[in-house]
């Protein structure tokens, strides 16, 4: 009558049975054999670091940083510096809001969406414009059993899969409609 009485449940298999059936069963039974026990273990010599404070990496452009940092950490990533309107939004978010504020993250998410639109538009004046067919990998549907992988398998994600094409194609349709309307407005003004 678990859990209404004090007894533990009877185990279906004893430790000896499990040890015989499962390779390595109980090898880390003793917490002392578990590498992250205890969670914190003060041992600065264990890491291979031969510095107290790392040398500073050169800051090649004003690096945005969290308000919760006293100063720019000595080492940082140099991928994709902020640029355009999305870059301005990112700089604003870092300069104005700490990580504790929802506004910080919401502005960054908005900047991500703006960045995607800016980048798509920018790609159209290059020799390699964005191609939603190849970049979404949707052509793998045929090679990777798209239909039989999804249907007849009782997958829980089918209830929202239909949203994915809207998320991918929606912004393109939106930009197309906006461009058409702006173009039509300009033509009407000239007329």
């Amino acid at each position, binding site marked *: 009558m678990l859990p209404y009485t004090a007894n533990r*449940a009877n185990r279906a298999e004893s430790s000896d049975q499990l040890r015989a059936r499962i390779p390595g069963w*109980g090898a*880390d039974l003793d917490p002392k054999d578990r590498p992250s026990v205890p969670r914190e273990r003060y041992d600065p010599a264990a890491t291979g670091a031969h510095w107290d404070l790392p040398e500073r990496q050169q800051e090649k452009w004003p690096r945005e940083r*969290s308000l919760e940092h006293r100063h720019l950490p000595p080492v940082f990533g140099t991928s*994709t510096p902020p640029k355009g309107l999305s870059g301005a939004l990112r700089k604003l978010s870092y300069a104005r809001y700490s990580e504790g504020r929802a506004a910080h*993250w919401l502005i960054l998410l908005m900047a*991500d969406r703006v960045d995607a639109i800016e980048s798509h538009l920018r790609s159209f004046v290059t020799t390699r414009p964005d191609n939603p067919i190849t*970049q979404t990998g949707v052509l793998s549907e045929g*090679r990777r059993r798209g239909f039989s992988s999804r249907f007849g398998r009782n997958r829980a994600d089918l209830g929202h899969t239909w949203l994915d094409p809207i998320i991918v194609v929606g912004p393109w349709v939106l930009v197309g409609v906006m461009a058409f309307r702006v173009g039509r407005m300009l033509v009407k003004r000239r007329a």
Partner: protein
Amino acid sequence: MRAMVYRGPYKVRVEEKDVPPIEHPNDAIVRVTLAAICGSDLHLYHGMMPDTRVGMTFGHEFIGVVEQVGPSVRNLKRGDRVMVPFNVYCGSCYFCARGLYSNCHNVNPNATAIGGIYGYSHTCGGYDGGQSEFVRVPFADVGPSIIPDWMDDEDALMLTDALATGYFGAQLGDITEGDTVAVFGAGPVGLYAAKSAWLMGAGRVIVIDHLDYRLEKARTFAHAETFNFAEHDDIVVQMKKATDYLGADVAIDAVGAEADGNLTQHITAAKLKLQGGSPVALNWAIDSVRKGGTISVVGAYGPMFSAVKFGDAMNKGLTLRMNQCPVKRQWPRLFEHIQNGYLKPSDIITHRIPLEDIAEGYHMFSSKLDDCIKPVVVPAA
């Protein structure tokens, strides 16, 4: 060099980029020989992680060969075969000195709540990742290790995140002999967590997912009992029935931000980005575990708030333990387990994809096509 590049939600392509330069005296440049796509890469791919910039190269699971080292590097030289933990970390800050390598304070200007991760948005430091031909590896004397001669490349690759994280997740559960352990999620991390729970003496291991082919892998690879939550009206009640209405002793969330099982949670988090993640698996874990039990969270969530059933956790007196895995701390013991034959990490790899086909790889993995569990990317294929 050729590199995967993010072009906006659900869109990636391969571009020609400059080989990364040495930016710091303790940097190394590594020529990538194998990389993997991680389930958490899908959060970036779906546009869920704030400050994910168009042009960034993803990839935090990779191995390779040292191509160049900075002037202060002592432990590596050109030509060494190395495995690189997904954590970028300095080895000398308050947190690194205590073994919390994933919480390093010297490598991420963009946020203090998380350390540095290769190819994982600017929120994790703005480092390009390893789904490319070359990658910059900061603190070469701290993070990377030379791959032992006896170790397979694909096993080494799995050690850079998925295996270490699954094993770490089982440790966070504080498993004692005979415990019943529920693992939510039968992806790579969940499979490794289930397998690791036995090493720590679990008496039962139950894996929950909605993809039958992954549950089959949980039975064969991780010797686990399985439940398909899509076949049960209420998986929490099913878990109670399966444990004589006591609940599991330990529950591990190995799903994270894009959990299915509750349409409202999934859409508000994964589609509308109004939550840091869809905590369906975490809420099920909270409700499935017994009072006084332990929850381990190794599924990744974004920095925004999420609708977690905190009242149940409090009222049940649960212990919630979580972190990004400090990978290198796990390696010596995991090396032993692999050598002893207790673990064969590469058994979960299902697909090997040339870098040039990575857009299709992301789509297949994201859409769970072709019974995909773990796709590996081969830059030189």
